[in-house]
């Protein structure tokens, strides 16, 4: 009986090793570690992220999120987010991923890890249908444009393109659209996908198709979740290769003014 411990050691060592090996699959607190992924989406942008007739969120970003999270083998739960709160939902831990027309910028990369971009879009201009003098960004000089809280699009016209437009502040797109239709402001500028969705809501508006600043719309993730970011990039590649990207673009923007010419996987930002 005294010999038993020694005799038992060999198989025990092996068992312990096997146990440790089996445990190496799940790591960290990234998106790959839980069964559900909380995705922050917009609820104020028709065609991208908005409440549908049933009250559920729907739109291009919502469908993309559902596809990507599905590719990771997880279930998506949606959390509403405003433009101003997109970084905060990640850092505060209220969401694991942000798909909310979140443009990748060097500045944001200090605080957010970006997978993708999953879509390239351009900054563009939305005007009243009767407006013919605005053909490109330079024609905004001296005109009034909406400056929606949390979006830097109006600022970029003035600073980056050096066009002396007059910025009129708004909290969200709703009141801005009302003033545009009533003629109190002359134009709205931001991502063309957002504008296309807004234009589709009203027959009185038109997308200029000026396409002046390239915007890379990425998946916001927590800094450090390199593994999750790489997995999302692979899923995005899959989304373009299996035709889902084209299908979703057609589904949400096919009937709008948005030109859907090039549908090809964008150049990724890289996860490290």
């Amino acid at each position: 009986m005294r010999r038993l411990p020694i005799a038992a050691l060999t198989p025990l060592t092996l068992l312990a090793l096997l146990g440790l090996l089996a445990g190496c699959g799940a790591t960290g607190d990234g998106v790959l570690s839980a069964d559900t992924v909380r995705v922050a989406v917009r609820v104020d942008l028709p065609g991208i992220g908005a409440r549908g007739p049933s009250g559920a969120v729907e739109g291009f970003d919502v469908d993309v999120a559902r596809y990507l999270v599905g590719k990771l083998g997880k279930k998506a739960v949606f959390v509403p987010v405003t433009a101003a709160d997109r970084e905060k939902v990640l850092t505060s831990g209220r969401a694991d991923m942000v798909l909310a027309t979140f443009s990748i910028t060097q500045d944001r990369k200090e605080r957010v890890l970006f997978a993708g971009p999953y879509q390239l879009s351009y900054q563009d201009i939305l005007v009243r249908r009767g407006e013919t003098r605005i053909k490109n960004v330079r024609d905004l000089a001296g005109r009034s444009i909406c400056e929606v809280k949390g979006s830097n699009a109006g600022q970029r016209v003035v600073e980056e393109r050096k066009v002396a437009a007059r910025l009129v502040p708004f909290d969200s797109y709703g009141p801005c659209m009302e003033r545009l239709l009533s003629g109190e402001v002359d134009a709205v500028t931001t991502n063309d996908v957002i504008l296309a969705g807004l234009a589709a809501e009203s027959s009185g508006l038109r997308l200029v198709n000026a396409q002046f600043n390239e915007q890379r719309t990425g998946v916001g993730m927590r800094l450090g979740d390199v593994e999750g970011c790489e997995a999302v990039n692979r899923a995005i590649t899959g989304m373009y290769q299996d035709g889902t990207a084209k299908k979703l673009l057609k589904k949400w923007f096919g009937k709008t003014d948005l030109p859907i010419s090039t549908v090809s996987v964008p150049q990724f930002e890289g996860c490290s």
Partner: protein
Amino acid sequence: MTVVQQHPAASPTRVNVPRRLTRMTGLTLASLLVLFGLVGAAGLVAGDGMRVVGRDAGPQVLATAGLYHGLSDMDAQVADVLLMGREYGDRRAAALARYEQRRAEANQALLKAFELTGDDPAERVTIQSVLDGLGRYEWLAGRAMLLDTQAAHAAGPPPETVLKVYRQATDLMRLELMPKAYNLTLESGTIVRRTHDETGFTVRLLRDGVLAAGGLALVVLAALQVTLSRRFRRTLSPPLLTATALTLALLIAGVSALAGHSAAMDEAKQGGFDAMLTLSRARAVAGSLHADQARYLLDPDRADTYEHAFLDKSQSLVYTEGGNVEAYHATLARAKGPVRLGMLRGRAEIMKSYRRLHATDGRMRAEHTSGRRAAAVATKLGPLAEDYAALDTVLAQRGTAHRATFDRAVASGDEAMAGLWRLAPFGMAAIVALVVIGVWPRLREYR
């Protein structure tokens, strides 16, 4: 069992000796087998990891980065050719020759990348689509250059008929082909990171297992030695003593080989691969940023878009504040000390040529916006092209240096394991033989 029946009157102690000896020998051999198995498993995992990093992913980064560089420069040469118009005769011919050379390089890099892809279906689809797209691009670029020659325009923007075709070509290149090549480079980075982490984890675990199994084998060998010398009133058994010494040697050799391999793997990734990858990406971005300078002058309708792309790429290489190109040039010129953000952060040796490129860029844009269009084109095709060539050379040289570190680390990792593979099988066979030689004569005394 048979022993017990043949000697019913024997004392209990004497009856148990052969059984105990057999069991102890069995246990010794079993623990040795576990040790050998773990050493072998660790060696296989380590060798496999190094193969993925050193022979697949490392070369794949170089192939796909070469592909990107070739593609990017093809489009840059086309832009230059169109910008030159009927002026710059010799330089136009040189740009056309370089276009042909880059085309050949891109095709070679594509073949190499395809070869290294193995059986990854997603990567294969990507490379296939780049191959298809490249054919379309060459047709469009050829047509744009033909129309341009026929137009025989002065240096600067060509007629709209040429631009229309060039826009299709450059959109195909910039928005479809180059991103795919870039993503393939990133994917190799993913493969290396995963392999490094997983191999490192498993090898460390197996090394701990080797230590435990080796310790156990030594304890059991010692116990066997003690049993033999007590029961048979002999001094130490020389074969068993040798077996013990050899086991200890094997244990030390195995653990140190694994430690050497882990160190080599870390060095290959952190000292070589990561830096190589970053520089490859930086060189790719620098190339397409330079092409944006030509496109800015070439296509007035899209000048805003190309200027924005230029600023965006510049800030991804070296981040300093600036909401527009002029502001960026100003903050870049003022910035003291190492830059904190961007792919070229902390690389003082590259900053000098990077700054010079941007200073010349500022001059070109000032000339362009003040109406001196011909001067701007001359600046682009002269000093700016030289500044870019200088920057590209520095980036390529640094990349080669990191590649050497990478190759050395991969070789030293392979060497660490090769030594173990050469000696371990003989050592293992000798240990087993010595144990049997040590015990067999004693067991025979009971037959």
